[in-house]
């Protein structure tokens, strides 16, 4: 082996070794790296239900219940396979709305209701002007589909 080949081997070896270590470490800490658990993971018992954890999913339309005259509210988080009801007291972010992603931090009660003390909104990767969104909604009977096809809507002229 020439010195140069030895140095190439060294660089490739460093990369391979560190990648392997990274894969092993990330696999070992999989549960801790996970930012939130979805309702299916909660139903399967994968979520750390004895501790505080984050629950994430979509807000099921028609389930948002606001107590008149207080900040108490409740809604259902769904991943379209399983549902978890969440209760929360406080102000929610502007992007909190039906059929949108949400991440709730709190504890699962023994009655299966998730008591949240922090609500974060999660938006998706789709960006579109309001007119396009309106056209897509009208096409789908007033509901924004999970994976809207932007091309299907009339383009706005600017």
């Amino acid at each position, binding site marked *: 082996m020439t010195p140069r080949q030895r140095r190439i081997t060294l660089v490739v070896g460093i990369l391979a070794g560190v990648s392997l270590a990274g894969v092993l470490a990330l696999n070992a800490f999989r549960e801790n790296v996970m930012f939130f658990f*979805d309702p299916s993971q909660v139903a399967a018992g994968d979520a750390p239900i004895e501790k505080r954890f984050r629950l994430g999913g979509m807000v099921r339309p028609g389930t948002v219940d606001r107590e008149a005259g207080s900040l108490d509210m409740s809604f259902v988080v769904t991943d379209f396979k399983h549902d978890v009801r969440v209760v929360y007291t406080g102000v929610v972010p502007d992007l909190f709305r039906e059929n949108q992603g949400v991440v709730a931090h709190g504890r699962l009660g023994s009655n299966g209701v998730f008591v949240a003390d922090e609500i974060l909104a999660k938006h998706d990767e789709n960006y*579109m002007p309001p*007119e396009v969104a309106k056209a897509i909604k009208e096409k789908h009977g007033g509901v924004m589909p999970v994976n809207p096809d932007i091309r299907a809507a009339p383009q706005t002229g600017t």
Partner: protein
Amino acid sequence: MNWTWFHRLGSPPHIYRIAGTLTPWFAWPAGLLIAAALYGGLVLAPPDYQQGEGFRILYVHAPSAWLAVMIYGVMASAAAVGLIWRMKVAHAVAASCAGVGAWFTAVSLLTGMLWGKPMWGTYWVWDPRLTAQLILLFLYLGYMGLRAGIDDLGRADKASAVLAIVGVVNIPIIRYSVEWWNSIHQAPSVMKMDRPSMPFDMLAPLLMMLLGFTLYFAAVMLVRLRAEILRRERTASWIREVLR
């Protein structure tokens, strides 16, 4: 095969001259593109249906984040070339990348925090994507600190090159963090195999900004490369002729 062109790339006076010639060819288009993209993104593009006008921070945030990752790739590749072929100019290129990359990383983190507060409801969470990007900033800072901490140039080059190569594992983690794990950060809108998840009049300024930032990086890197070469070669005779 004729390798003269490759060996000339290792010659500091040659690179010093080329870098000086090329800089304006990157700097002027960069300035024009960034100005046009700012106008397109902040004035011409329509507001988003969910996020309203607030989504426009995307036009600085996303290109900064892409550049932060891309510059790390350039830096680590240059460091590997320097290590394998003992090419001092390659180490100088890697050293010139670090500062620019660190700034782009910081800008992506700061604009992300400003965006996260109104949209998600928080400045910062220990999410995989956010954490990996913060580690990228520390990798850049560590690389610069390591170089600054070793007096002997050859040893500084080697040690920092190894650090840069080790840090490459973080790059796929940043890119795929939103797919491997549940993350509060949305999935890629543009950097994916599928068609982009935004209409053309929103996308065009974004791509212009990306190209503008890339050219800006090239221009700044070349200026820094010239300074780095001058610093390294300060005792060489060709410097006296160049600076006369």
